[in-house]
């Protein structure tokens, strides 16, 4: 069976083709294509511009994916698309394309929860059977554990997502958004040495990032580190700026921000592991491709006698195959999304999905 997955809940549009062989052998990725809408430094991506980008690229990506996968339209069984959560306009742009293909080709439509897509793809790629999942991206921050056919949220952010916190700080520093602001913060943080004091906000199983963002934005302003000019100076000095007064540098701020927020994430993940008695951790979502986060999580898991499972950017960052994978699992249990119910929603909680395909 073959599924096409279409993802466009944020600034990436992805089309993936996945095959579940009839003989029960492991699922195969036939194509995984993505295009990212990159906004200029100092700016985020606006929903209407992102939707325009997705509309312009969707046909091209579907065609290329089919070609790369060497499948014809007749071979396809279902069209899977992201139904939420995400930004409204980009979600709608991709949902319209999915509906159109479904009607045009006469294929079943399967709406997929974006978070469940991440989890299922992570499980497939890493082989983790029943892990505690840390899902961290620009729009979501959740610690999830499976229990009786739901992915239950143990802890989550009370305000903005961790990726959003990093992205917005990148805007303050005018760090490039290409390939991703978080990636560039990570590179800059490698030169940081000095740890500045930031709020550390863990409330039970939950975390909060908005106060940290305000605090570090304040520090950047106080030390005059924000803005495009400073970014240019820094780039010319190739990061070797060492202030004689031992004032923190841009790199120090990135370093401190990463150390603080990732410690918080590892802490709540560890708490969830202790609570459900699991030794596996799976990190998914765009921020999950951060190597420092993976390293910290690895140390924590090792100290608990467990192990961490992470994927690289092909599967971590939003993509089409994760939607195809989760959609296919649902499709095989008989799940369909009738055209009438195929509208998408910005608010779609992970624990709303009934996980019919798992029986443990």
């Amino acid at each position, binding site marked *: 069976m073959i599924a096409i997955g279409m993802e466009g809940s944020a600034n990436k549009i992805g089309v993936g083709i996945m095959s579940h062989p009839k003989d029960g052998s492991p699922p195969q990725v036939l194509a995984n294509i993505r295009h990212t809408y990159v906004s200029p430094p100092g700016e985020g991506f606006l929903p209407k511009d992102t939707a325009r980008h997705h509309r312009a690229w969707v046909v091209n990506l579907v065609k290329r994916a089919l070609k790369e996968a060497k499948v014809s339209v007749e071979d396809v069984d279902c069209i899977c698309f992201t139904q939420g*959560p995400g930004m409204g306009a980009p979600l709608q742009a991709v949902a319209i394309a999915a509906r159109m293909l479904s009607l045009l080709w006469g294929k079943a439509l399967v709406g997929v929860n974006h978070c469940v897509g991440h989890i299922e793809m992570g499980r497939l790629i890493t082989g983790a059977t029943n892990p505690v999942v840390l899902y961290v991206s620009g729009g979501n921050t959740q610690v999830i*554990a499976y*229990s*009786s056919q739901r992915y*239950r949220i*143990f802890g*989550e*952010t*009370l305000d903005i997502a961790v990726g959003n916190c990093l992205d917005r700080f990148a805007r303050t520093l005018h760090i490039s958004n290409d390939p991703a602001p978080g990636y560039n913060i990570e590179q800059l943080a490698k030169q940081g040495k000095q*740890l500045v*004091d930031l709020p*550390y906000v*863990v*409330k*039970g*199983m*939950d975390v909060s990032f908005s106060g940290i963002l305000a605090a570090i934005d304040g520090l950047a302003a106080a030390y005059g580190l924000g803005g495009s000019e400073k970014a240019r100076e820094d780039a010319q000095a190739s990061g070797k700026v060492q202030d004689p007064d031992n004032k923190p540098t841009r790199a120090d701020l990135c370093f401190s921000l990463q*150390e*603080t927020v990732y*410690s918080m994430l*590892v*802490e709540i993940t*560890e*708490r969830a*592991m*202790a*609570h*459900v008695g699991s*030794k596996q951790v799976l990190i998914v979502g765009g921020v999950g491709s951060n190597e420092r986060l993976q*390293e*910290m*999580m690895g*140390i*924590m898991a*090792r*100290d*608990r*006698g*467990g*192990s961490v499972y992470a994927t690289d950017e092909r599967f971590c960052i939003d993509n089409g195959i994760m939607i195809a994978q989760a959609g296919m699992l649902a499709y095989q249990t008989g799940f369909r999304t009738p055209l009438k119910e195929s509208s998408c929603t910005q*608010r*779609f*909680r992970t624990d*709303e999905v009934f996980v019919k395909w798992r029986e443990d």
Partner: protein
Amino acid sequence: MADEYKPPALPAPFNNTRPAPELLTQGAEAHLYKTVSLDPSIPAALKVRPSKPYRHPILDRRLTRQRIIQEARCLSKLVREGVSVPAVLALDWEGQGGDEAGWGGAWLMMEWINGPVVRVVLEQWEAWMKKNASSLDAAQLEQENSRVRDLLRRIGKTLGGLHKAGVVHGDLTTSNLMLRLPTEGTESETSPTGVSMQGEVVLIDFGLASQSAQDEDRAVDLYVLERAIGSTHPRSEPFMEELVHGYRESHRGAVSTLKRLEDVRMRGRKRSMIG
């Protein structure tokens, strides 16, 4: 996979005490040991917060020190106010004797509570009910449910006492609630499940506690527990009302806290906005 797990070295003086402290559980933040205090016949609980190697050392010391002191302050305040929590016996926030640098984390020694954790009690009960509920008649079923309702009501009452004393727990789960075994001579209840729900409810693990009398913090405390029960004890979840009931009766400020709880529930992020 990973090698056999070895806990980190104990801070002084526990690296030298005989008999050596016995590791009971590895929580998320701390290791809990059973040891003795002053006399070999007096058991005590030793909570060690080892340094967390994944964290930056400065951040690690700051958090560990802050939390162990905070915990001790809250506990001693609650003991004074007559809330059932373990008493503080001793602590050190700059424990020595770690692997290399000498920093071995912080430790806190507390009174030993003899009894089961509520999580285990409810899990055993739910497991038994799942297997055997169909064999019970209506009266027995009602009796079983009422035992859980009673337990939740007692928990609510204890939480009321905690909040009344001006402390919020910050990490309420059923793992952080214990039942102190009744002293011998008390008649024990009988139940086909073999799971006793008797005993005084004792609150433990104040690692994330803080002093606050705000409705917001209190309501979040209750909300955290509500969600923890929902996710770990699905069969007991319908009885949450009892906990709220017990809480309401516990002190005068409870009513406004419970009103706030409604708001907190609504605020859960990305909850469906329909209806």
